[in-house]
């Protein structure tokens, strides 16, 4: 469970926020129901990734980006459709919800595909201390340092180790709802 606030930064980037994901998910649920669904499930993921590649001590790749995506499963008359989008503009979300419900009509009824009943859903989500705050300090410079250290150690194992494809260091931080 995240202990950070919505204003936390990650090397200058906005940190993915589970509350924002939840808000988007709830918004989509309501759009799906308005669009005619009997039920729906939504998954929203928001993440930021950093990848650094080093070869023979030289930096070969620095890749950094944020990414958001939404997956939706709608049910209508026991028929299901599964859809996804990365376009979060309000008009696109509304159209997306409506088209997903229309798509479900093509599937055949599957009585086993219904949603779990409310009393089967988790009420409390325990804090398993899975969040490591120190990930916020893993920036490009630190990534390069670690990748270099790893490759260096491999090249020094034996003089017969004469070449390297490179070493990669990657870090992602994400939130989901």
């Amino acid at each position, binding site marked *: 469970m995240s202990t950070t606030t919505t204003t936390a930064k990650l090397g200058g980037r906005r940190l993915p926020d589970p509350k924002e994901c939840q808000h988007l998910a709830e918004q989509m649920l309501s759009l799906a129901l308005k669009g005619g669904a009997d039920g729906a499930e939504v998954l929203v993921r928001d993440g930021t990734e950093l990848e650094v590649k080093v*070869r023979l001590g030289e930096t*070969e*790749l620095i*890749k950094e980006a944020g*990414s958001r995506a939404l997956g939706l499963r709608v049910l209508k008359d026991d028929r299901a*459709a*599964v859809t996804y989008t*990365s376009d979060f503009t309000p008009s696109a979300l509304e159209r997306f919800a409506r088209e997903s419900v229309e798509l479900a009509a*093509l599937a055949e009824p599957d009585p086993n595909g219904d949603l779990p009943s409310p009393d089967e859903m988790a009420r409390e989500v325990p804090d398993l201390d899975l969040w490591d705050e120190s990930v916020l300090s893993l920036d490009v410079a630190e990534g390069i340092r670690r990748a270099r250290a790893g490759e260096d150690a491999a090249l020094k194992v034996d003089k017969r180790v004469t070449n390297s494809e490179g070493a990669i260091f990657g870090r992602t931080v994400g939130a989901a709802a």
Partner: protein
Amino acid sequence: MSAGGAADQTAPRSPLDAIDAGLAERLLAAALGSGGDYADLYFEHRSGADFVLEDGRIRTVGRGVTLGLGVRVLRGDATGYAYTEELSEDRMLEAARTAAQIASSGAAPGAIDIRPVKLAHRYPVTEPSLARPGVDKVALLRRADAAARAFDPRVVRVEASLAEEQREVLVVTSDGHLARDSQPMMRFGVSAVAEEGEGASRQRQVGRSGGAARFGMEFFARPGQSPEEHGREAARLAIGMLHAVEAPAGPMEVVLGAGESGILLHEAVGHGLEADFNRKRTSNYADRIGQNVASPLCTVVDDGTLDNARGTINVDDEGNPGQRNVLIENGVLVGYMQDRLSSKHFTTKPSGNGRRQSFRHEPLPRMTNTFLAPGQDDPEDIIKSVKHGVYAKRFAGGQVNISNGDFVFALTESYLIEDGKLTAPLKGTNLIGNGPDVLRKVTMLGADFELSQGTWTCGKDGQSVPVGIGTPTMKIAEITVGGTKTR
């Protein structure tokens, strides 16, 4: 912006139409704002749908859209990369500045004169599929299901699937090139399970048939590609395997059937001919241009120009036109597959092989359609020439060590050859060997070229791209066959 590529007057307006020259210039200027040799913008809009029929019911229908921009900056051999799904100018400029961090010289970039690249039209779609009603696609799945079940009462389970996609790309580079392309892909597959016998002697085998190519609905009108033909073929393979015998084991003559055997070429030789592995000298073909690396019968080609083929591209993902590249000519290594970065290193021209999985990925040298050119021999003579060996027809896929070309492949359809004739179908057959070694041991090469119509996907560095493969029928003097039956 629109230029080159196939323009469909009836298509709905694309989000990529909103990208104008001025915006592209501002983004490229921001990307090169900290220095760097080169920058490019890669806009991608992808929409797709998929349908699965299982046990006679439409189990899944799905649809998705992705839209984004990837910005790349090159400085020598180093790459800076960033991407965004939000196409507001602010977010795109932010991505450009993030990619720029690979450079640090602070030199101001000059003005960029953007000109469209003229492209071929290798996959004009006459019957676009995404706009067609879903019931039409469901009907195709039902036809395959019915044909598979009707083939033989021993067919107990059938699954059929269809996936369609339209991918639009817009590449703008700091060299001033602009390329826009619309890339369709239709994929269809059937798998059938056949069962025979009871209790301890019960046999269950699966057979699969399918393919993918750059078509719309006209995919299914082609010879051999109707839903019924795929349904019957999947059933035929499953039934055939019910009485398959254990494959022999040990080194022996192998005849590779035309078409799918190309996977062996792709894995065991093709990857070694990608320029990045040779730049880093991790490929067994490094520093060997001009040397003899295969039997003089062998000419290996990577060709991105074959109409409608799965691996074909009008333009690669760096804005360079797809082209035909001869890599090994009559046994001599003549070139590698290049992306822009590698081509600068080797001081040669890009070869139209710079491809990426999506806007979230940086380009790498990748294959398109890779094959061995046909020879002079009659394929029937090739089989007749084998006293004891294996005929390899269909492959499941395989793995290779590119540093030395060692491979292992599993076969899904193969036959024993005895005294020049195909006899028993085999199960559990593997081919174990070395790519360059196989090319040296080609002793007969058929005149019957075939490009596989199958759904082949190449994975490299965590990036998947669709590819095509092909070969003529060919005889290999010796490959180790991994089976369970010893002589």
